[in-house]
């Protein structure tokens, strides 16, 4: 197969290179100049916002939402590019440089879509459901430590809080399935919730094992204890199977292949977000990717040393490790086929739960020896 290309537009190519170099130089200049700015002048302002409880929370919430939005933007682009490269194709290339603005274009498209609510739908539940799911995902970020100081609220029961709040999302999914007045949405929602709740059990057991080994529920303390050696290297026999179990549960929590029957396109029942379009659907989608980032970040905190690492700033280390785990999740998604619902349930209850229980017992035995 021979390809003929239209003659390259040298002027536009040169222009693109120049723009790229200019932007990079500008970014580097800004980031290097940031510490040199006279932040001391802003001291009264920061003190006011820092000490005022409500405004402090508001600013932190806005920051967290911004971080989530930005990383969703990036992750969706990365997912499409990564899937493309694995499948011998290029992924989005047209909008923005190498398709980087594609997610923005999709978001704009979703914003301009007509807001359709089915005729006999339960309007309150229908409207509430996406926000329930999104709020649950967002709240988990409150306790996720990006570094020692970059944490929403350094909760001493962080692990417990994160696990319980992420389950609230199941409520939103059930509301979506019921509120759409569609038998198939209901079935899809019910299956999704069954999957979510079932896979919580092995996840909680593995997290319990790590918490028991670290003797604290606080996520920042767990990371601080990994200063010399990551948890997975410190207790390999326990935590390597533990991580694998956690990884499978994380995939199921985020409805990713091979556990994506609730949202599979080629299956019969299209899932709980069939009737959603436009911005409501975008919220579901954002929530899914936020959840994705959270479960990966949680694994990094529990097993891979959180923000610990030489030379680079802690936030950068955390982001790199989380991104690597997310790439692993994507890799698994685009390789494996889908499990059927009964096979999925069997896998959880007949394989993962006994293994997680055994792991927990082994941890207890290890600690008591």
């Amino acid at each position, binding site marked *: 197969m021979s*390809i003929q290309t*239209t003659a390259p537009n040298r002027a536009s190519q040169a222009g693109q290179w120049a723009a790229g170099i200019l932007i990079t130089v500008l970014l580097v200049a800004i980031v290097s100049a940031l510490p040199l700015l006279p932040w001391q002048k802003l001291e009264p302002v920061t003190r006011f916002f820092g000490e005022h409880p409500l405004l402090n929370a508001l600013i932190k919430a806005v920051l967290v939402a911004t971080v989530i939005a930005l990383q969703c933007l990036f992750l969706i682009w990365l997912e499409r590019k990564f899937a493309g490269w*694995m499948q011998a194709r290029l992924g989005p*290339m047209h909008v923005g440089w190498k398709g980087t603005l594609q997610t923005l274009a999709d978001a704009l498209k979703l914003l301009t879509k007509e807001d359709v609510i089915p005729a006999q739908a339960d309007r309150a539940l229908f409207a509430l459901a996406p926000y329930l799911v999104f709020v649950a995902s967002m709240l988990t970020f409150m306790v996720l430590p990006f570094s020692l100081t970059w944490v929403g609220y350094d909760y001493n029961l962080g692990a417990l809080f994160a696990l319980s709040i992420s389950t609230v999302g199941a409520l939103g999914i059930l509301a979506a399935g019921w509120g759409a007045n569609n038998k198939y949405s209901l079935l899809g929602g019910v299956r999704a919730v069954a999957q979510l709740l079932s896979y919580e059990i092995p996840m909680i057991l593995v997290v319990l094992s790590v918490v028991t080994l670290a003797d604290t529920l606080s996520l920042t303390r767990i990371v601080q204890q990994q200063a010399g050696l990551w948890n997975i290297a410190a207790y390999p026999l326990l935590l390597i199977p533990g991580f694998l179990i956690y990884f499978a549960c994380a995939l199921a929590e985020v409805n990713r292949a091979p556990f994506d029957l609730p949202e599979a396109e080629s299956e019969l029942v299209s899932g709980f977000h069939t009737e959603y379009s436009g911005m409501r659907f975008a919220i579901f989608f954002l929530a899914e990717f936020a959840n994705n980032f959270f479960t990966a970040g949680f694994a990094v905190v529990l097993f891979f040393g959180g923000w610990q690492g030489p030379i680079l700033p802690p936030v950068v280390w955390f982001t790199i490790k989380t991104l690597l785990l997310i790439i692993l999740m994507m890799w698994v998604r685009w*390789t494996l086929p889908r499990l059927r619902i009964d096979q999925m349930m069997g896998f959880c209850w007949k*394989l993962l739960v006994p293994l997680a229980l055994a792991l927990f017992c082994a941890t207890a035995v290890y600690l008591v020896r």
Partner: protein
Amino acid sequence: MTTTRPKQSAVRDFFSGFASFFRGMGVTAVNLVARRKITVQYPYERVKVSPRYRGLFYLPYDEEAKRLKCTGCTLCEQACPTNVISMEKLGAGKHGGVSEFTMDLGRCMFCNLCIEACPFEAIYMGPAYELASYDRNASVFRITDLAQGGAAAVETNIRTITDALAEEAAAKAAKAALAAEKPARQRPASPETAIAKAGETPA
């Protein structure tokens, strides 16, 4: 060759199943890193089609004879399964041609039968495949769209053919005139014989 699958113990099955995931992920990793990406970014890049590609039709133009090769024999029109071709003939015989050659590509199957039917190599399928349009009428191609050389070629073609036909007609007329110049047949008087006279009417 009949094969059945071997039965494995549950533990063996678990580990081999797990290993199969890693093998699969290895395949996708190899494709991620080591294989060429085959995307052709249309419309900035286009795939070159093969020489025999069956795309938009064209009617070849004979430079020496200054006319389209098409003589209007309608063999292609008869060969088409879906009545795509219609034409207006200009004269007949080997000096003949077409003044209008219309192909309704909305009906065309691109099956190549018309090309195979033509004895004068006067219609071919070329490499153009971007034939989509917003208007159904735009898929009706006239002779000026199809002729190699466009409207100018069509004009020259018509001129050449009409000239040739006129020449032919003139030659025929000249022959007829030549024949007309000969004196008309005059019936000579019948001979002075009794039998011949017998037919004459009495005075």
